[in-house]
């Protein structure tokens, strides 16, 4: 192969020009500690600290004994690490007569969260798909109502929903709770799915129709496999939303089936003499653990999923 350098020189034939061309060469020198980098990383680290402080305080406090909490400041690391608050929060903290801590609520939360997440996402994804690809007259009106509904304070809807559930005979059942979570997850989830499916090239959808696929077939065979990123977003949003829900959990369940957040409230608000901050913090971390893990593990997917279509107006 011919040497491009020689070739260029041969064509131009202008070595004479080269002499006066002087000056810097190579990559622009960049110091690791340039002003820009100091500002950039400095800001990020300071902000990150602000975000981390509460978590730090929670953890540190949960590892201290009560006397140490009363004396020291909350930011000091524990002098003597004790796991007793954790044990108490998980297994022995009392509410009224029930002294089994959060442990009972954990499985209840799982039992409530899993079907609610599945059901609400199933419903919302089909809705979003129908809205994006199979528009029918009036669909947008319903959707607008739904979006406006996202602004209604939950408290306002408690009474009508109590009456609705009573009328269909589902009040106090797991299905009742699942429906409630599906209803309140619907506006945002439907918006997400609608936007995502709307961004899928229409040709794909048309091709499938020409191939004779119907509504459900296109949904399951074409759309569903493509919608993975947005499903991840929806699942994460719903797991945290439903796991963290307190209001519906307390109103639509019974003591036997109280989710973890209700137990947490009970433990935190069952003040006996002094507030046991260490137990409260341990209970708080324990309750938040599931959604936290979900975020730590899948935060990247979440960001990617949002970028993949959630934010397209």
């Amino acid at each position: 192969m011919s040497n491009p350098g020689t070739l260029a020189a041969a064509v131009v034939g202008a070595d004479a020009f080269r002499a006066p061309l002087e000056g810097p060469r190579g990559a622009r020198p960049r110091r690791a500690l340039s002003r820009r980098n100091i500002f950039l990383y400095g800001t990020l680290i300071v902000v990150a600290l602000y975000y981390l402080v509460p978590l730090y305080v929670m953890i540190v406090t949960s590892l201290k004994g009560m006397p140490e909490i009363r004396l020291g400041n909350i930011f000091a690391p524990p002098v003597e690490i004790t796991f007793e608050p954790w044990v108490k929060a998980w297994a022995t903290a009392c509410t009224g007569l029930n002294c089994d801590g959060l442990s009972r609520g954990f499985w209840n939360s799982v039992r409530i969260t899993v079907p609610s997440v599945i059901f609400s996402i199933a419903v919302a994804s089909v809705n979003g798909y129908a809205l994006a690809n199979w528009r029918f007259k009036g669909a947008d009106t319903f959707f607008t109502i739904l979006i406006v509904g996202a602004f209604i304070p939950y408290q306002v809807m408690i009474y009508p929903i109590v009456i609705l559930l009573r009328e269909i005979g589902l009040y106090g059942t797991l299905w009742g709770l699942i429906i409630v979570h599906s209803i309140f997850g619907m506006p945002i989830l439907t918006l997400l799915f609608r936007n995502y499916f709307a961004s899928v090239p229409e040709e794909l959808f048309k091709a499938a129709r020409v191939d004779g696929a119907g509504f459900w077939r296109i949904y399951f065979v074409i759309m569903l496999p493509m919608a993975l990123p947005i499903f991840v977003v929806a699942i994460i949003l719903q797991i945290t939303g439903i796991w963290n829900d307190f209001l519906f959990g307390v109103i639509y369940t019974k003591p036997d089936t109280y989710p973890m957040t209700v137990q947490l409230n009970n433990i935190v608000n069952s003040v006996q003499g002094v507030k046991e901050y260490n137990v409260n913090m341990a209970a708080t971390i324990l309750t938040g653990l599931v959604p936290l893990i979900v975020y730590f593990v899948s935060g990247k997917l979440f960001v990617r999923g949002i970028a993949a279509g959630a934010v397209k107006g």
Partner: protein
Amino acid sequence: MSISGNEVRRPSRLFRNLSAKIASIPMILTALFVFLGGTLWTVLYSFTNSKLLPRLKFVGLDQYERLWSAPRWLTSIENLLVYGVLSLIFSLVIGFLLAALLDQKIRFEGVFRTIFLYPFALSFVVTGLTWQWILNPDFGVQRLVRNAGWESFTFNPLYDQRIVIYGILIAGLWQGTGLVMCLMLAGLRGIDEDIWKAARVDGIPMWKTYMFIVIPMMRPVFITTLVIIASGIVRLYDLVVAQTSGGPGGASEVPAKYVYDYMFLAQNLGQGFAASTMMLVTVAIVVVPWAYLEFGRRR
């Protein structure tokens, strides 16, 4: 060759797209019965003197008159306004700045992103409790600074009526800015790379590129974000209850709490419904025209 045969009748409009309609039944039912029905029901009963149980004994506008003469309601509205405006501005600004910083091709982007986002995984109850603890004057920041030698330092938002709403704001922002950052980051990544190049060739400074080119281009992202933040602000309740229970002296009351307290605590459904109707009207004035433009007409 004759083109004839069974005359094909145009299928009924009702059955066109039948599967889609069937699939939309949950949405239609929710929209009609829960959101629309529930709202109308609430508005209707706001004109009654329902106490513990809803009863159709109409009293005209009495509940509204009482509502607007209740100092607590006025405080609640004022608080929501202050919190709402500041929360909107700060979450958008902070969320955007963080996203812009993360967008500088920095190292450890994933670590920073996770740190900024994790509070969003925690419930408001947890957020409220933790910040109550940090802002506690006897244990938290104030004590820390005083111990460090600055004896007269006072930072006591949760027990100071004048600034309590800012104490709540601090916690609210801590919880919510991560998601805003995430949305903004997604928006920034969606900006055509060539735009940045064009701006550089044009010699436009980075801040100007953000201000005059990138941010206007991110309008849809800002709108989605706005919907999410605003709907959260209107519903602000758990955080206040967990952090201050509306105190001190009712200085951090918010409308959603007024609704809840009057419906269930005071057993005056009519009053609660009137308050929630006012909230709905406010929301509707802002949201309905926008939602109509954004979703209703686009074909």
